[in-house]
């Protein structure tokens, strides 16, 4: 699917849930979305237009916690980065494991490293830090020092 076509389609489908959609590089797309719509959008990308979920990247920034869900359209080589911003206090978002199992590990990892809560995760539990780290310590946050 062409980049412009993708932006048109996703904007038409989700309307004001898409806050901004732009082509950032040759074949890279950045789409800012409403946090509440993430499940529907992921469902559409995975099940309707068959984009492959690559991984999600969490970031700790001045704005709060940001997550970029990276989806690949393997037929065109385009990568769609779906971007959400969560608040500093109680960052939480619906879990994509309700759409596809591939989000299982990375969401558990983001929870342990950044302290983001994924609601309705189908397989909650520690991935990396079982018995190793103290509760409530999130080493990938910017304010983490030791």
């Amino acid at each position, binding site marked *: 699917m062409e980049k412009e076509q993708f932006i048109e389609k996703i904007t038409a489908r989700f309307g004001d849930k898409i806050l901004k959609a732009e082509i*950032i*590089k*040759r*074949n*890279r797309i*950045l789409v800012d979305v409403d946090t509440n719509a993430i499940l529907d959008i992921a469902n559409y990308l995975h099940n309707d237009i*068959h984009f*492959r*979920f*690559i*991984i999600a*990247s*969490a*970031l700790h*920034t001045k704005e709060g916690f940001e997550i*970029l869900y*990276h989806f*690949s359209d*393997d*037929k*065109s*080589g385009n*990568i769609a*980065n779906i971007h959400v911003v969560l608040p500093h206090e109680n960052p939480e978002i619906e879990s994509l494991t309700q759409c*596809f*199992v*591939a989000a*299982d*590990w*990375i969401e558990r990892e983001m929870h342990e490293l950044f302290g983001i809560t994924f609601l309705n995760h189908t397989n909650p539990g*520690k*991935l*990396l*830090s*079982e*018995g*190793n780290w103290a509760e409530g310590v999130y*080493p*990938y946050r910017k304010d983490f020092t030791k």
Partner: protein
Amino acid sequence: MNEKKVIPIGPYHPLQEEPELFKLYCEGEIVKDVKWETGYNHRGIEKLSESKSFDQSFFLVERICGICSTSHPFAFANAMEEIADVEVPDRAKYIRSIIGELERIHSHLLWVGLAGHFLGYDTVFMWAWKYREPVLDLFEMISGNRNSYAMFKIGGVRRDIENAKIAKIRGVLDLVKKKTDLLTGAIMDDPVIHARTKGVGILSKQDIMDYCAVGPTARASGVDIDVRRDDPHAAYPLVDWKVITAQGGDVFAKAEVRLLEMYESIKIIDQCLKGLEKEKEGKIEVVVKNIPAGIGTGHYEAPRGEVFHFVKTIGTNSPARHKIRAPSYVNIATFKKSCVGQTISDAAISLAAVDPCYCCTERMAAVYDYGSGERMMNGIELVEKSKRRTEEIRRNY
């Protein structure tokens, strides 16, 4: 986690292959469930990268994995060059692809050897590893290192492949091609290997879609994806090659994909060498002075599948965020599909079929009784059981 306490040699044991624990819950001979524990060796590389300059990060990400040590710098370079909007010179493109493909050859040979070992074919193991050596010698000749070649930088490569070395590379490729013929013949025509690998550890196309698996694991199930073709970079759009796929989704199909991919790699390298001969020596980089603020997503098809790097920069000389996803991260999760319902003796090869990264991660497999949860055998015993199964089949032929 009571089970962890039962294991006599833990995931940290130096003789074990991976500090990652897989538990096979069995009912009699049949595997009923698989569980795993990871994080024994979490090195915090993503966080560490935030404290390094971009140049230093190349050496850091190269050390994520020893076997596919050039795949991470490759993907990282793609991400950084996307941010900096840099086009590398053709000579650097050829060199990048040559290094990447040589790595694929030695990595696939390593897998063929290990798969042979798990099945009780130690001759295959010794042959495959023997003919992997000349490829490593090539790396030594080109970069000075048999591993962790430090070839990549933003804007190009660190070392040239002088035209005088091309004949030697061609010589090794000829040898590897002959020996790949030998291995392919030995594996594809052996009825015992067919009996041990066909219909074993099957992953359907739907499983691949659900788990978003990548690389030979996906291609063996008929999912035609390959980053080198889908998102062209380096010299891949400049040469003629094809993506290998198979339909079975079983261990045999995965072996087939890897073996045939080695021929494609040889083909790619040969054409890249011709490209080098036409190019002027020494033009291997463009100078990149500043990295602007922005985000970059770079990926590369490592021997095990897509390596993905996400980088966010804010105008300083180090990444503000660097996310890395290795292919085994998504491929290992497919064990839940490939192992369950198999016999224990097929478990070792089913687990090995996705080629989980042995070099940077070590593995410990333990078998538990489904009812009592009691520990029954460890990884070494599991391989022994797999070998006995092959021996039984072989005797019946």
